[in-house]
């Protein structure tokens, strides 16, 4: 991975500034920042609605996403995340980094890596619902407007991450 690439990654400070400008543009146009987890919530809520409409409307978590007049997927964050997928794909193709593979540490099997990724995904989404936002919606966007909760969340993520990363070294190294 550290070998020289034909299309190297960009300087992180340049990318960061670019994302910061996107946040500003997003505030200026819509009054809201970027996001990610909200799109997953809308997606899940709209599927639950088609499977079990009454039950989903009764649920306080999902009803929030489907009670509007508009279709739940006709939403700012949903379209933004579809864009993220497209943008990532474009850059991946241009940089010749699009490849079907499993990214993992050398000491772990692909199957175990996928199981851990799935489990981590459950944990992360659950946590992001508890905190009312993820790295994009809460840390990046909330951090920019100096929301107290956003900054507390951000530091807590690092504390949580560092407190287990060295305990599960074998997963990644």
């Amino acid at each position: 991975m550290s070998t020289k690439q034909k299309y190297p990654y960009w300087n992180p400070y340049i990318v960061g500034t670019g994302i910061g400008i996107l946040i500003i543009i997003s505030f200026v146009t819509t009054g809201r920042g970027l996001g990610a987890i909200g799109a997953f919530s809308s997606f899940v809520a709209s599927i639950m609605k088609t499977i079990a409409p009454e039950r989903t409307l009764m649920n306080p978590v999902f009803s929030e996403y489907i009670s509007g007049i508009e279709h739940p997927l006709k939403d700012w964050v949903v379209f933004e995340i579809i864009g993220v997928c497209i943008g990532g794909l474009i850059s991946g193709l241009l940089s010749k980094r699009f490849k079907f593979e499993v990214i993992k540490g050398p000491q772990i099997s692909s199957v175990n890596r996928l199981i851990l990724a799935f489990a981590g995904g459950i944990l992360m989404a659950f946590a992001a619902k508890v905190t009312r936002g993820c790295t994009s919606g809460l840390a990046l966007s909330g951090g920019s407007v100096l929301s107290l909760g956003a900054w507390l969340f951000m530091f807590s993520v690092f504390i949580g991450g560092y407190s287990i990363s060295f305990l599960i070294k074998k997963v990644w190294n």
Partner: protein
Amino acid sequence: MELIIAPIRFNYEVSNGLLLVFALLTGIFFGFFLEKAGFGNAGVLIKQFYLTDMRMFKVLFSAIITGMLGTFWLSYFKILDITQIYINGTYLWPQILGGILFGFGFVLCGLCPGTSCVAAFTGKLDGLAVMGGMIAGIIIFGETAPSMDKYLNFSSLGDVSIYEILNMNYGLLTFLIALFALVCFWIVGKVEERFNKKLS
């Protein structure tokens, strides 16, 4: 001085369709940037937590600093009405404990919700697994949240900002945070040097 033209959505007539087109475009740039940073690859992002490549911190913090300074100066010059900007509500303990839990998940995944999409769409199957896990996680949350209601809304402080709680000048705080960020960037560079030397 009555300038205020933004957020455009609240001060001009904008159709919902146009907003969604805009959301799509914003997302395309966001995803493009994330991939260019290397964040479509869990192996790159996870190095943050082994201190060998602190890209994640650099991107996250420089984006926040840019967003913070831009928002402040636009509101200072009365172009942007800060009171119309959505400020994420503060739920003290849910966000601290949830943040720690999120950190655990992050290290298991090597990706966050947004970057898992970039990973999946550049062919990384682990990114797809994270996305699948997230859908399951939201369903689990939806089914259990009603019984945890009391805890989820515990220590709610409302839409409070750091300068309000510290009773501090907004501009001064952005200046101090920017300064703090510069010091952090310098430290982070030193840490990387050290941990890379250790490995080689």
